[in-house]
């Protein structure tokens, strides 16, 4: 992975560092997963019951139970508070859970599906990264920074982020650990990819399905709309305006400047409403379609109202207080019943409060905004698992060039490794050995949340610093 060589890209004169063996590494990641799935089924079934990997919403075991209730017992899949996912997932994955392949464990087909989902998600990440990269080149060209930036190395962020997503131990755990999260992550990435490449129907279907499956991706609607409106990440609009004003004051008749000026004009193309309207239309069409499908599916079991109550209601009211890596289960286990509703509101508004300020500050970088939203959701959602971290870290890889100056990268790395190892040990100490108690485990959950906060704060400030640096650069250039 480290063996990189410098390859001149066609799109610009900048040196781009490319990963030479992308496909080898990607394929070997897939093979690694397959080896795990086929040779260690017993260990994986143990893994599937770990609270870090499967939550009440994403557990495949619960899905199999729901499918059995629906098909064999022909009662509502939501009976008995076992299954809390979408009825569509039940119809797609349900048959796979009962199919036996050569005496192997019955979840093997689902696992294969998750492997495919992971692979496609990684490819989409790669394409998104390439798109972002070319947008970065274009904007720096139009700002006249290409000469200066040319001296520094630019990493192929798409390749890095795709490989990081594929080889991240958290992603691998999610993929082989029999939870439905790989599908959800895939849909989120699909929607971001669709928005980046301006494929409005794709963005809409990804967003609607992701929201349908796990509710929290709903907040990604804002970055998707910004992406469609402004285009992929670029330096702040101010910069282009500033440069323009300087140039018009100069009145120089150099042909090169004319060319640049045109480029600048195209780069600050203002907010376009047409794709937004299209997106809203497509999104509503898709949601109506999916709701109709769901309605047909749960027709005999209480209808859509029951489905909403058992899926979104379950997510929002934190009914299941079994321990997980989030911070809410302990809180709601301790809180008095008559304050419960109040704190539910507070917790959920916590996410909503952060949406608007961030959207205003980072509207010129919608993809990064999506990453920040995903990170915040993975911290504050009611049933988090390592899958959320996997998604968030995968998106993080997309901005590797802009975030080279993060201060706490080493601390974050050590923290992630330490907490992820400590958390199962504490769980073991509490549940199996009985010498620890819930506080031991919860302490690691708090440390984990703190790490995610550091990640968000540090990366956001590094991104803003990068913008400031670009501004300084442009002022220096225009002065000389």
């Amino acid at each position, binding site marked *: 992975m*480290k063996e990189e060589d410098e390859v001149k890209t066609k799109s610009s004169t900048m040196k781009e560092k490319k990963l030479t063996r992308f496909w080898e590494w990607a394929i070997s990641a897939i093979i690694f997963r397959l080896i795990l799935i086929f040779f260690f089924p017993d260990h994986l079934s*143990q893994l599937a019951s770990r609270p870090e990997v499967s939550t009440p919403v994403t557990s495949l075991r619960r899905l199999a139970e729901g499918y059995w209730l629906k098909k064999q017992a022909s009662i509502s899949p939501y009976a008995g508070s076992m299954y809390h996912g979408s009825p569509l997932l039940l119809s797609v994955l349900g048959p796979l859970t009962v199919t036996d392949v050569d005496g192997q464990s019955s979840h093997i087909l689902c696992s294969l599906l998750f492997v495919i989902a992971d692979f496609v998600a990684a490819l989409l990440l790669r394409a998104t990264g390439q798109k972002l990269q070319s947008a970065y080149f274009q904007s720096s060209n139009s700002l006249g920074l290409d000469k*200066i*930036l040319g*001296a*520094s*190395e630019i990493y192929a962020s798409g390749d890095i982020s795709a490989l990081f997503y594929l080889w991240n131990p958290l992603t691998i755990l999610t993929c082989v650990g029999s939870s439905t999260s790989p599908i959800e992550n895939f849909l989120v990435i699909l929607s971001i990819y669709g928005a980046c490449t301006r494929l409005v129907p794709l963005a809409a279907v990804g967003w609607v399905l992701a929201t349908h499956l796990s509710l929290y991706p709903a907040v990604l609607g804002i970055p998707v709309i910004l992406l469609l409106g402004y285009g992929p990440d670029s330096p702040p609009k101010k910069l282009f305006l500033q440069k323009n004003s300087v140039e018009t004051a100069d009145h120089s008749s150099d042909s090169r400047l004319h060319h640049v000026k045109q480029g600048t004009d195209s780069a600050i193309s203002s907010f376009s409403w047409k794709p937004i309207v299209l997106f809203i239309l497509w999104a509503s069409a898709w949601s109506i379609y999916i709701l109709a499908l769901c309605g047909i599916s749960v027709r005999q079991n209480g209808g859509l109202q029951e489905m909403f109550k058992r899926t979104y209601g379950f997510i929002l009211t934190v009914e299941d207080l079994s321990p997980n890596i989030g911070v809410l289960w302990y809180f709601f286990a301790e809180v008095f019943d008559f304050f419960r509703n109040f704190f539910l509101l507070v917790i959920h508004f916590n996410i909503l409060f952060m949406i608007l300020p961030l959207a205003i500050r980072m509207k010129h970088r919608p993809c990064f905004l999506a990453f920040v939203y995903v990170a915040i959701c993975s911290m504050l959602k009611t049933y988090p698992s390592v899958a959320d971290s996997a998604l968030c870290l995968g998106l993080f890889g997309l901005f590797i*060039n802009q975030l*080279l*100056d*993060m*201060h706490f*990268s*080493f601390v974050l*790395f*050590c923290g992630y*490794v*330490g907490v992820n*190892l*400590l958390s*199962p*040990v*504490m769980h*073991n*100490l509490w549940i*199996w*050995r*009985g*010498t620890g108690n819930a506080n*031991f485990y919860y302490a690691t959950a708090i440390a984990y949340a703190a790490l995610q906060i550091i990640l968000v704060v540090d990366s956001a400030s590094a991104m803003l*610093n*990068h913008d*400031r*640096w670009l501004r*300084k*650069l442009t002022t*220096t*250039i225009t002065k*000389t």
Partner: protein
Amino acid sequence: MSKMAKSGSPMKKPRPLVRIVLLLMSHRVIVSFLCFIAGVIALLLLPILAKNTYISENALMPGSANPMLSTQDVLDAEKLVDELMSLSLQSDDAGIEISRMLLKSVGDLSAEVSQFQFYPQANKFHPLQFFSSHFNDPDQENRTCISPSVSTVGIVRAPHGDGKEAIILVTPYNPLKLDAGEALSLGVAYSVFSLLTKVTWLAKDIVWLAADSRYGEHESVDAWLSEYYAPTFHRSGKSHINLCSGSNYHQVTENLAVGAEPLESFRRAGTMAAALVIKVVNGSKDSQDSLSIYAEASNGQMPNLDLINVVNYLAVHRHSLHVRVGKFWSLLESECLKMIGGTIEFLGNVVRSLNPQWGFGIPVSEYVEGTATLASSLYAQALGVPTGSHGAFRDYQIDAVTLVISPKASPYNLGKRSEFLLRSGRLVEGVIRSVNNLLEKFHQSFFLYLLTGSSKFVSVGIYMIAFALLIAPLPVVAASLYSDAVTSQPESDMVECSESSSSAALSISCGSWRWLYAAKSVFVIHIWAVVVALLPYLICEIPNITSRTCSISWILLSLFTLHIFYNVFGSPYSSVHSSYPHNEEWAILKSVMIAAAFTGVSLMSVVNFAAAEIGALLLVPFCLMAQPLKLDMGNSNVKSLARIACNMVCVLCLFPPFTFFVMKGLSEGFSCFDIGEFWTWVESLWLWNSATYLYVVLVHLPCWVLCTHLLLHPC
């Protein structure tokens, strides 16, 4: 407004917290030295900081009732002991006869009785089983035709209980070679059991397991427990006989003779509240009967302190037994300890003379004894191997202790024997009565503690201080080295770009990500360590191999894989990046290595504190001192020479097999030196699923390898 202007000034002062951290980091040598010394001193002070034990759970009420064990029970028990002894002297089929006799005598007491038989299992390598719970897959196919061990299980149903809880009595005995002590322990258990069939106050069922320990005490108890809690359904009574039919006729007859019932009749009581393992050994040199308490289970887990307290209280205050816990006898004569103890006593006296209220000193003898006990407690926990068959219970979260009672008189002295039986029987009865009073599980008192005497303990809150001081230098040094290395690179700050737009000044530095190369090398070494940890899988497969060849082939294979890893992934030196000055490269490698060691040691402290404490004592100085020899060679002052010497000693001493031999030599003398012993030791560790094995191979070994690399770094 003026404030605003001030804060906008270029020389902004960092916040106090940040300043403290920066101060610590800038004085890393002195800070780490002080912390380490303080950690060692705190460890030596632990015997002074120990508190007296107290019974925390009120419901236990030990000794509040008069003992009911009568001489009649003792007489019955004595009769049983006599019969057992005579049987054991008789013939070669004593094993069957003894279990048959136990079956009959327990049955006569109007208690439920059954037999449990199990076959020994081949030793298997399960390095990672510590995390998962128990999987005992009995492989039927490989079982050779050997006679099963047949344990007798008697159950008294409590007249007042709901049958949901039980107290377990275990008496291990070897039917092939029954000695007087084992017969006596059976007698003690029998007398108590016969009493308990008659009493009215029982609220919990009593289970007496006379465990046939011909294949090991722990194995038989463990097999019974796993059948009790996790029954295997695919076995049937028939398969036992069919396996050996034809080839071994004796086997079949033995099965029939014992009347071994099929496993469907495995009898259970409720969940277990506590378990007592009773053993009697001969040859006490004390003037009175003495009782030794063994409590360490696997991975340094201890039973609830209340259980030990109850036993200790009853033994000392009701039955005037001399209570002991394990201690290192060799340390009692240590001059060094006596000197430290003397200093502490002197200091205590001085302080007391200043103000009589401030007494903290303890006498020298008490200090030395406390330290010897503490050392033994630390060692037994660190090894992670249970000190008796009570260890099997802790794996099911049941509190259990082994009571080893040694009579002052010979067991053949009949007059003293009945008195001894009465006394120890009453002790066991008292403990059972206390536990019987419990309404909940043991939870009130400590689980994490170290014993410094039978009635003194150090709780987790205190012993953690010593450990925290020991490892505190690690993050400080890692952070300091890292930040030094990152900030000392050529000036290329992103925000403050100079007026002259030279490309060097404006280029994006990937300074904060430079640890990636070092992290890669550290990661590769750790992956190698995982491979080394799994190598015994392969080595075990080789047939007819001695332990000496095993250990040698293990070491050679490890070196070979290390070589392969270097060829495939590159050695830690190959990542030396051309554009950076080399002297920072080793600093970053060291900082990542220290971070990894810190994570590993902290993890281990949660899993098994004592192992982490000992590991930190060994590892931390080396981690802190390691520095490329080339740098020290350059300037030949006293400091660098001393560092070179220390580093060389550490390299030698911390190589795991060598450390093992040094420790063994220090405790037992350097008489015999056999490399095979290391393999035997390691084998014992993984047989008991000890996390210490994982610690040694996954934390200690890679850290040692990386430190050695650092010393040889071509900077």
